[in-house]
């Protein structure tokens, strides 16, 4: 490993030099005295307190349930809005409002989340777990926007509005900030007591150490996971209520995204260690405070302070100790991908292409533009298929990559018009993809997910708005491809569709190739892949470059379709939501990206054109929430499940689809209000289902999925499997009689006890 150590010390030198350069370049000139350093520390402590409380919530939930909660920020945001309602709208006394929000609402909310959603994710893959919490986060964001109109002011006052506080080094530490520091310390002491002095806490630590063993000793996961979510929810609410007054007006989005800043603290604690998480929070607070005290970012770097915590996360990931190769694959591996036959690919491609060529010119310009955007979004997501679906790498920043393709498409247009420009945009993005993931390449999946969110944040907040990138909007002319002018929307739609289909065929070929098998092998077992001579880092690097290339081409198509380029085309939240939608429709399929792109376009049309105002908002709320639920019920993704279902039970599906279409068509033709139309379509689908049920005596398989409370959840299945002695490692859940002992001996491969 000497080579590796050398490589790492090169990394240390490079990063240190870069940081030093930034510090020297941006040095504000304030003198370094005891006083100024004292001030820096005074500013750092409250910031560190917020990071510590947020990161503690993340660590407690992750270490006891295995779910990294991307919705932590949104849960806190929701708690803060509840507090605002109690305090400002209902005029409750401050103490009572605080008590109700932190000690009543937050625990109940956390417990509900655990019971209704999170417990059912226990056996899911990392990607499904992450995207389910992402869905929750987006759903809460939507609900908050409906309940608390973002256009009217919502401000939480300081806890001690009369001001005052502690003065040291010439700085006033307000009561609010003192309370923040106190809350962080109190939380640390309380957790220390809980984890080391109470039975439940010791159970939680046991589960962290060895979940299987803990189960054998009769520790109930339900209780500990419930407690973990309660703690997580309380931490989130406390942090949000404390930080909210500093931010001025409450913004649901700002508060939700604030959690990204705490990732670095949690990563220092390696997502498990609470004392180290506090150390990480303190370091992060000091870094942020150092930059605001001693550095002055102007010009190109004006946006840098906003992404310092994200950069800190990437630096932490770069220096996290190399983990040993992960032994122990997921308890249950889903076949996330479906590999269609070439015949299926050919027929599907022909159908899509004919539909676009035949119906494209009939559509209005707006619809056509939306469809083109859908195809471009589909291409961006297509790049995520080998990455998320086949290699199982949870990269959540498709727009972070696509943005580079978009910028290059505009930048290269004068010199390299047409296809060459698009290809070069893709190639450069491939390199960017590789560089962006270096910190996380050698680390395990979850860190990659965190790193990718940090990367997206840095890209959207800092890199794209740079003056020499995309600080203002620019027009992008539609390209000439092979002598054909694509300025008419219908011709560009055909071009975008052809690009999608070609790339889709390309990745189907990739999946069937030697490299495709290598990807699946790496996903199914990293340890075994390494032990047959597959280099994990090389494999991941190649798949990142493929993903970068495809996403870059997609980004180029996106801006050429819209004929302008702007930072706002590729928002952070938008990127997260299209990943959610991809995972919902089938992360390992080549049709999933197109369906996800079309759904995104349809949502945009429905909520902006058909259902304006509140109903549109409701739809954007219900969408992600339903998506998260759907993901839990159909973890492989909707497209593969529906295809499998259609093959098995064609009649009910056809009847339901017919009912849905009929209801929808009647709704549109009669100009019914949008919601009535949707209700009619749903009723049509239900009627179709009932009719089909009358025709076929068999119960429809798809209805089972809807009747989710009757469905055994994974934990129950595991218990049943253990009872059936399919897996002796899971422990025993019933008394052992002679018969069972015989089965047990057989399962364990030992000769019967009596024969010895």
């Amino acid at each position, binding site marked *: *490993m*000497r*080579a*590796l150590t050398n490589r790492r010390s090169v990394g240390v030198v490079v990063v240190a030099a870069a940081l030093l350069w930034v510090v020297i370049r941006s040095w504000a000139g304030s003198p370094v005295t005891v006083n100024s350093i004292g001030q820096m520390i005074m500013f750092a402590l409250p910031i560190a307190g917020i990071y510590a409380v947020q990161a503690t919530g993340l660590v407690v939930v992750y270490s006891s349930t295995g779910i990294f909660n991307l919705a932590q920020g949104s849960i806190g945001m929701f708690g803060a809005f509840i507090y605002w309602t109690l305090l400002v709208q209902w005029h409750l006394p401050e103490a009572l409002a605080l008590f109700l929000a932190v000690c009543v609402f937050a625990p109940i909310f956390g417990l509900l989340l655990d019971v209704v959603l999170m417990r059912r994710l226990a056996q899911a893959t990392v990607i499904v777990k992450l995207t389910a919490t992402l869905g929750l986060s987006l759903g809460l964001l939507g609900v908050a926007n409906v309940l608390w109109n973002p256009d009217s002011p919502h401000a939480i006052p300081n806890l001690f509005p009369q001001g005052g506080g502690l003065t040291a080094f010439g700085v006033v530490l307000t009561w609010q900030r003192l309370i923040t520091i106190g809350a962080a310390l109190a939380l640390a002491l309380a957790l220390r007591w809980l984890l080391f002095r109470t039975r439940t806490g010791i159970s939680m630590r046991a589960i962290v150490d060895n979940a299987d063993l803990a189960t054998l000793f009769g520790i109930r996961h339900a209780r500990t996971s419930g407690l973990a979510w309660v703690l997580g929810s309380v931490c989130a609410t406390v942090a949000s209520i404390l930080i909210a007054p500093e931010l001025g007006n409450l913004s649901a989005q700002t508060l939700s995204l604030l959690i990204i800043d705490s990732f670095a603290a949690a990563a220092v604690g390696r997502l498990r260690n609470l004392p180290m998480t506090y150390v990480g929070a303190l370091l992060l607070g000091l870094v942020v405070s150092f930059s605001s005290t001693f550095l002055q970012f102007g010009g190109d770097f004006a946006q840098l302070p906003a992404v310092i915590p994200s950069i800190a996360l990437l630096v932490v990931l770069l220096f996290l100790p190399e983990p*040993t*190769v992960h*032994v*122990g*694959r997921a308890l249950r*591996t*889903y*076949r*996330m*991908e479906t590999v269609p036959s070439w015949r299926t690919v050919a027929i599907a491609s022909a159908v899509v292409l004919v539909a676009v060529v035949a119906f494209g010119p009939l559509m209005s310009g707006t619809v056509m533009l939306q469809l083109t955007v859908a195809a471009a979004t589909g291409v961006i997501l297509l790049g995520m298929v080998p990455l998320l679906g086949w290699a199982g790498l949870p990269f959540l920043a498709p727009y972070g990559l696509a943005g580079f393709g978009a910028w290059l498409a505009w930048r290269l247009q004068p010199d390299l018009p047409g296809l060459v420009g698009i290809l070069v945009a893709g190639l450069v993005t491939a390199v960017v993809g590789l560089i962006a993931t270096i910190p996380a390449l050698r680390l395990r999946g979850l860190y990659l997910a965190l790193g990718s969110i940090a990367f997206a944040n840095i890209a959207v907040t800092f890199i794209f708005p740079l003056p020499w990138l995309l600080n203002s909007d620019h027009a992008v002319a539609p390209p000439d491809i092979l002598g054909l002018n694509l300025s008419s929307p219908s011709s560009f739609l055909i071009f975008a569709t052809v690009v999608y289909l070609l790339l889709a065929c390309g990745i189907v070929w990739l999946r069937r190739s*030697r490299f495709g*098998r*290598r990807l*699946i*092998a790496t996903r*199914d*077992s990293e*340890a*075994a*892949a*390494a*032990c*047959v*001579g*597959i*280099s*994990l880092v090389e494999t991941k690097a190649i798949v990142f470059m493929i993903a970068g290339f495809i996403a870059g081409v997609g980004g180029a198509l996106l801006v050429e379709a819209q004929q302008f380029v702007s930072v706002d085309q590729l928002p952070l939240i938008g990127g997260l939501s299209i990943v959610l939608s991809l995972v919902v429709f089938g992360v390992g399929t080549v049709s999933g990206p197109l369906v996800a792109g079309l759904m995104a376009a349809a949502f945009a049309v429905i909520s902006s054109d058909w259902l304006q105002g509140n109903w549109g908002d409701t739809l954007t709320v219900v969408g992600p929430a339903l998506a998260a639920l759907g993901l839990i019920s159909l973890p492989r993704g909707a497209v593969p499940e529906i295809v499998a279902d259609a093959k098995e039970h064609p009649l009910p599906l056809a009847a339901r689809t017919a009912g849905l279409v009929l209801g929808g068509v009647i709704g549109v033709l009669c100009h019914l209000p949008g919601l009535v139309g949707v209700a009619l379509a749903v009723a049509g689908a239900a009627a179709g289902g009932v009719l089909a049920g009358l025709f076929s005596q068999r119960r429809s398989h798809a209805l089972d999925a809807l009747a989710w409370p009757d469905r055994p959840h994974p934990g129950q299945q595991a218990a049943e499997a253990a009872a059936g002695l399919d897996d002796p*490692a899971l422990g025993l859940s019933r008394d052992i009689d002679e018969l069972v002992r015989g089965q047990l001996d057989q399962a*364990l*491969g030992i*000769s019967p006890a009596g024969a*010895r």
Partner: protein
Amino acid sequence: MTPATGAPMTQDTVLDVEGVSVRFGGLVAVDAVSLSVRRGQIMGLIGPNGAGKTTLFNVIAGIQHATGGVVRIGGRDISRLPPHRRARLGIGRTFQRLEVFGTLTVRENVLVAAEARRRWDRSVDPAQATEDLLARLHLDTLHGEMVDSLPSGTQRLVELARALACAPRLLLLDEVASGLSTYEAETMAVLLRELAADGLSVLLVEHDMPFVMGLSERVSMLDHGVIVVTGTPAEVQANPDVQAAYLGSREAVA
């Protein structure tokens, strides 16, 4: 290296482990273990649960970093190489807790390894090598099955076939007989003897005493991370420390 801990080092030593230690915090899982395996030798490694056998395997395969000590393959120090480089130098292994490529078919599991081998051995034809191995392990009737759907005994065979597809010099087998029926275990023993006769060295961690004692040329016992005794199967079975620490009583050995 002391004579008490392993066979004396000779020209045809394939694996040479010297003073390897692994510490997890305060716990010493493997404590200055030395052992060596000659070409074509089957060596057994026994010991109670938690003795450090799998940890030692992980160190040899490169999945676990040792806190100290040296691992050599064919005389070359590989202590600092990552696992895939060690595989390319001829270490193949199976896993105690199965690590199959569950969503690939039986054939693909073996093919993936054979294709990886082409990186350092251009003479191999992956498809042909795969067919040969599947036939040899009687897996050819199952080649299209997804491995996750197979019983664990069959999955162990798939792991073995996959390890062999890399044409290793040294095979590390972690409880390869568990989950196999008596008949399957006998077939496995015959296969391993054939492979050893062809020059493959095997290091075998096993709880099935008749299996390991019948197959191994030499046996080492590991307890609390230390090699307690090394010798022929008969010597090890007769050792009072072994009986006390592991086997409990003589009857269980027979």
